[in-house]
């Protein structure tokens, strides 16, 4: 796995547990397959990465019906924060908080979970995306 792989860049906007889990699964898969992964946290996703809120209930996407919500909540899979930790463990995964969103909430680096590696502006994030895909969730 030494050849240079195209990075996968995930822009996380939604902060519901289902979308964060879907994103974390993509990150684990890409990292396991040797692709660098860049995660950019904006708005509601960033809010979910506050150290005090990672383990809180972040709800589900609005399209979840009552039956689907029950199925998703009842599934014994790992929490998205744990999956993201595994992704960082097996591969090159960098998680950055959007500087603008940090300002919106009036929070600092110290308010974020240790899964977050730093605070970045959008241009730096795009520079790191190079010629790989950028996925917005």
């Amino acid at each position, binding site marked *: *796995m030494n050849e240079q792989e195209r990075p996968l860049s995930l822009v996380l906007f939604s902060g519901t547990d289902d979308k964060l889990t879907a994103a974390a699964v993509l990150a684990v*898969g890409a990292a*396991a397959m*040797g692709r660098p992964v860049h995660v950019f946290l904006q708005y509601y996703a960033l809010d979910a990465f506050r150290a005090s809120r990672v383990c809180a209930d972040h709800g589900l996407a609005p399209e979840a019906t009552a039956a689907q919500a029950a199925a998703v909540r009842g599934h014994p*899979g*790992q929490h998205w924060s744990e*999956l993201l930790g595994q992704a960082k*463990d*097996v591969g090159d995964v960098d998680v950055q908080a959007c500087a603008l969103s940090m300002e919106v909430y009036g929070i600092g680096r110290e308010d974020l979970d240790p899964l977050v590696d730093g605070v970045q502006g959008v241009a730096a994030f795009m520079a790191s995306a190079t010629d790989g895909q950028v996925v917005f969730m």
Partner: protein
Amino acid sequence: MSTMQVDRSIDARGMPCPGPLMNLIGAIRQGQVGQVFEVLSSDEGSKTDIPAWVAKAKHELVGVVDEDGYARFVVRRAR
């Protein structure tokens, strides 16, 4: 394959995707080159994930055996 010496067996039955693959990766990283690892998985995703990862990571997929309700993946760490 039934006679193959397995150095480490991982029972990941009941774990959802990508759990069994991640357990295999963790075990291989802790193990040594030449050792043989076996993963038991009931996750359908493993049937595509484990061969894809083994090829990508340049290890050797010794075999995949369908059992009752799960599959047995045997992998040799090649490097």
